[in-house]
């Protein structure tokens, strides 16, 4: 599964024990794909000294500051992170401000 610009994604909360580019504050958080990049060596494998580490797609993901930091966050601000595909999954929940259509 690959993602496209505008897709909503959720980051993993894996028990990461090796080298990872996904900071703790952004694990298990919801963001939006802002850019799709090429493929790069998977850091967990490259960091472990694997001879030929897998290459994985990298995306720029935008997180609202409120999603990362909660109420003290500066309104309207956001954080962008480059994240490998294997640490992202599709976010199927309602977007902020979204609502169920109960009229039917």
């Amino acid at each position, binding site marked *: 599964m690959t993602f496209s610009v505008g897709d909503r994604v959720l980051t993993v909360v894996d028990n*990461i024990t090796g*080298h990872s580019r996904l*900071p703790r*504050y952004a694990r298990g958080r919801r963001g939006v794909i802002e850019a799709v990049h090429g493929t790069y*060596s998977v*850091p967990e494998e*490259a960091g472990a*000294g694997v001879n030929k580490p897998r290459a994985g797609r990298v995306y720029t993901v935008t997180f609202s500051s409120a999603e990362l930091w909660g109420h003290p966050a500066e309104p309207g601000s956001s954080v962008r992170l480059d994240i490998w595909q294997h640490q992202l999954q599709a976010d199927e929940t309602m977007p902020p401000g979204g609502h169920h259509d109960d009229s039917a």
Partner: protein
Amino acid sequence: MSRIHDVGGMHGFGPVTVEPEQTPPFDHLWEMRVFALMKVVIDRRVCTLDEVRHAIERMDPSDYLGASYYERWVAGLEAVLVSKGLVVPGDFEEL
């Protein structure tokens, strides 16, 4: 789980200071040597930058917090090159 380097969002470290640019961009001669050594081992595929990062992130937490940026590079490089049998502990003391 995360390690000591992963301090994003943590309070108590004070403001981030931005130092004025200087040429060369090093405070000490040994930092320039460490930078050159890192470039050589990566260009020659002795190890990857991610292996050095992994080694830096495995530093003892109190050592990590007490070390400067390039002191961490030395610790990480030494750990990786020792693990590959290319240097012995202490080889970098004369940098």
